[in-house]
Structure formats: C-alpha cells, structure tokens
C-alpha cells in the first residue's frame, strides 16, 4: 500500500511526462501538489469513486486500476492456463494412443448385450454434449480466435463468426444447464464415491496395466467425469449467467472481472477434461461408444469394466423374467 501511495505521488506528473517528456523536472520543482491534492491522492488506493447525477452508478467509478490486472490475466495468464490445460491434454492423449493404442474388448464380442443407458439417459447426455461442444468452440474462439482464426479468415468473416458464436454461446447455455441438472438427477445415485473407487484407482483403472478392478455402474474415472461436469459445469453456468446479465447480479466491475476469470479458467479446464472423456468414449476404447450410442453394451465389455453392475443387471433381468411365473404359483 505504501508502495502504491508512493507510486501515486510520483505519478502526479505522469501525465505531463507522458505528453511532453522534458517538462517533468521543471514541473516537479515548481509545482508541488497542494495539501488537499495530497489528501485526495492518499485515498486513491483501489478504484477512485465519486458521485454522478446520472442513475448509472458504474459511471461514479472514475478510475478502476484493476482493469490492468484483468487485462494482464486475459492477455497473459489465461492463454497460458488454457494452452497448458487443453494443449497438454491433447498431447497426453496422442502420446497415450501411440503407446497404448485402442484398448480392445477383452475376450472379443459376445452375442449378448445389456442395456446401459436408456433413452432419457442418452438424450440428456447428447443434449449436454452437443451444447457443450458448441459452447466450447465459441468460448475458445473468444479466447484464442483472435490469434488463431482471425489471421486465417480475415476480420469480417471472423467478426461474423464470433457474433454468431456469441449468440449461440448465450442461447446454448440453457440446454447445457438443463442437461447438467438432469444428469445430476439421473445419475447421482450411481456416482456416490465408495471404497471400490479406491481399489479401482489403485488398479490404475485398467488403462495402465491390464488388470481390471471391480466396478459398479460407474467406475472412479467415470465418477470423476460426472462430478467434474456437474460441479464445474454448474459453476461455469452460474458465472456465465452473471456475465450474460452484466451488473445485475454483480454490481461492480471488479466482480465482473473475477467472474470472467473464473468462467474462463473453469471452462478451459473442463474442456481439457472432456477431451479425455471423448477420447476414452470413442477411439480410446473398443465398445465404449455403444453405451451412449445404442445404449446397449456388449456383455463382455460390461463384465470387463463394470463387473458388479453387470451382475446386478443380469440378476435383475432374471428376477423380472424368471421370477414372475414362480410368483404366480406359490411353492408347495
């Protein structure tokens, strides 16, 4: 704070300096700040706020030095975070694919399938997924488009794309948010962490090495994805809505800056996480895509990855098909 104060005192003539360099020394000699001026300056720690007669009270903030810090974040820190998270994840996945290749289905395909996700499950997933993809692309465009895409397609096309992207980003936030809520309702029961998860993690999730750990409907990795999507998605949605309705929830520009920072960091990390999710659900593992594709998975796949769940499902199916006649005829 003293540092800042000193800077302010020194900065008294920064404007003069900025405008006509040689006048500074003379001005400093001849023109001391008045006492009132110094008192005023001493208050200048943080935003300088006064009174305006117009209703827009944001206008009462004369100067907000925090804008510089936000700028540094947005042009400096944020691209690094995003670059490392997303680029790093991509690199990791490529490397993993090169080393491990596609994880094949153990024991090959059986003739049997069991239902893993019903219609509502899949609708929820794909609504959220498609929304998220568009949100991610349009969001990343805001962060990186200027440096990556603009030089390729030119300012007019880029502005048109970004403008449409902004509209899409705003509107698709609603299905995304709805999807998050539905996921929570539909799948939270199967995503409560348990002791099995520790074992699964200890076993490397079956991706590292070839040993499968026991798992119910969702293994620890999937639970991690679930909670990332639900918690981070909710946070991203919340911060996004604050940004969408500027200065309604958050009154001050500082709050808007913080919100924007949270939104961008969380979003870029979630994008990185989802990249891994997409990888494992598509090219990374044989038989995985079907779960959200047709909703039915090969029995062998299920037994390999979700043995306990597969048993439960089969037991339930047997109860429902086999036990019914028995119930009609009481045992004697």
């Amino acid at each position, binding site marked *: 704070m003293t540092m800042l104060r000193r800077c302010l005192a020194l900065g008294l003539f920064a404007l003069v300096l900025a405008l006509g360099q040689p006048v500074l020394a003379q001005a400093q000699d*001849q023109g001391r700040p008045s006492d009132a001026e110094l008192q005023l300056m001493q208050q200048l720690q943080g935003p300088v706020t006064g009174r305006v007669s117009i209703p827009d009270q944001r206008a009462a903030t004369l*100067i907000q030095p925090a804008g510089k810090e936000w700028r540094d974040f947005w042009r400096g820190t944020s691209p690094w975070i995003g670059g490392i998270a997303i680029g790093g994840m991509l690199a990791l996945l490529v490397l993993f694919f090169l080393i491990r290749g596609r994880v094949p289905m153990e024991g090959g395909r059986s003739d049997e399938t069991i239902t893993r996700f019903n219609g509502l499950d899949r609708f929820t997933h794909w609504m959220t997924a498609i929304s998220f993809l568009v949100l991610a692309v349009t969001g990343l465009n805001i962060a990186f*488009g200027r440096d990556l895409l603009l030089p390729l397609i030119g300012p007019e096309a880029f502005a048109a794309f970004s403008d449409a992207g*902004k509209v899409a980003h705003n509107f698709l936030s609603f299905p995304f948010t709805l999807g998050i809520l539905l996921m929570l309702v539909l799948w939270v029961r199967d995503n409560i962490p348990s002791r099995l998860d520790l074992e699964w993690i200890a076993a490397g999730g079956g991706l590292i090495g070839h040993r499968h750990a026991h798992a119910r409907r969702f293994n620890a990795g999937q639970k991690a994805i679930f909670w990332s999507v639900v918690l981070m998605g909710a946070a991203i949605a919340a911060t996004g809505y604050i940004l969408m309705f500027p200065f309604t929830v958050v009154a001050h520009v500082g709050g808007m800056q913080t919100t924007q920072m949270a939104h961008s960091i969380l979003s870029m990390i979630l994008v990185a996480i989802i990249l891994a999710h997409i990888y494992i659900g598509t090219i990374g593992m044989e038989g995985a895509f079907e779960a959200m594709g047709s909703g039915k998975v090969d029995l062998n796949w299920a037994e390999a990855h979700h043995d306990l769940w597969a048993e439960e499902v089969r037991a339930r199916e047997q109860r429902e098909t086999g036990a019914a006649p028995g119930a009609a005829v009481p045992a004697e």
Partner: protein
Amino acid sequence: MARMKFLCDAERCIECNACVTACKNENEVPWGINRRRVVTLNDGEMGKERSISMACMHCTDAPCASVCPVECFYTTADAVVLHSKDLCIGCGYCFYACPFGAPQYPQLGNFGGRGKMDKCTFCAGGPEADNTPEEYASYGANRLAEGKLPLCAEMCSTKALLAGDGEIIAAIYKERVVTRGYGSGAWGWSTAYPDSQGV
C-alpha cells in the same frame, strides 16, 4: 502527426456538465449512453471536492484494444483509439479492462442482448468514409476531419478540459501548474497506471 490527448484540470472543473451535453448533442448519443461524464470526488467535503470530466482517454497502449476478442479497435494517425461497430460483438470485455469506464453498451432488450459498444471517438468518427451519413449514424461527428477539436473541450467554459496535441496541452497545463504554484489536478493515467511512467 499529432498525438491527440484529453486532459482534465480538476482545479478548474466546475461540474457544469457542459462537456457532457455538448458531446451528447454533437454526436446524438442516445439516452443512457454516456460517452463522457463528470464525476465529483469528495462530494461536499470542504476544500477537498474535485470534479473531473472523464471519457475515453485514447491510451497509447489501449487496454480495450488489447483485450478485444475480435480486434475491432484501431488507432488513427492522430493516435485516436477508435473501433469498428461492424466488427464489435458487444462482449463487454473492453469495459472490464478500461481504467476509465469509457465503453458503453446499449441494452437491446432481450437477455444477453448487449448492443455494439459505443464510446468517445475524440469527435473523429469511425472507420466509414469521413463525414458521411453512415459514419455519423454509427459513430457521431467527425470534427477532426474538419480540422476541429472535440466539442466537449471546445465548449468547456473554464478550459478545465483540454483536448488536442498532447505536447501542446501538456505545455498549457505545465504553465498553469507553474503559475498557480501547485500541482496535479490533472486526472488520468497516473492513477490508472500507477506503476508506469507514462502511457
């Protein structure tokens, strides 16, 4: 080429809002959009009250231009920071970055529908051809192209608000400081960029 700057001498500003009114009228700025505003610090405090007229300060390394996701800002040969409303997507980021609260956005009614950003142009219009109806409709007057300075400063009755070539207004200000024997009163970059020695 001149490097155009604003300077507001708080020792002289009498909070008459003539600059604001001149700006609104000259540029037909709609209700609710305040390209220029007068802020009174220490309102009512005897001897400490100061008023400052503030608008876009046309920074040399403009934060708005730096953070704009679509790079809609450009700097003219006179060092005036302008932007293209054809490119602007109304994201609001320039408002977060601007130390002076200059960017303004019309509300377009529906949610998230912030319009294209609007701000002080130093009465220098926009990217359209000089002094065309299209330019006026989007950006307001282009007095600079007519060899005139911004109307806010031209209308200032106490000459608190100065606009023009940075070196010339700095010299005028320096002369004032020397004459009255005490300093500052000029508000702007020193506070906004405390750790820099200029712009």
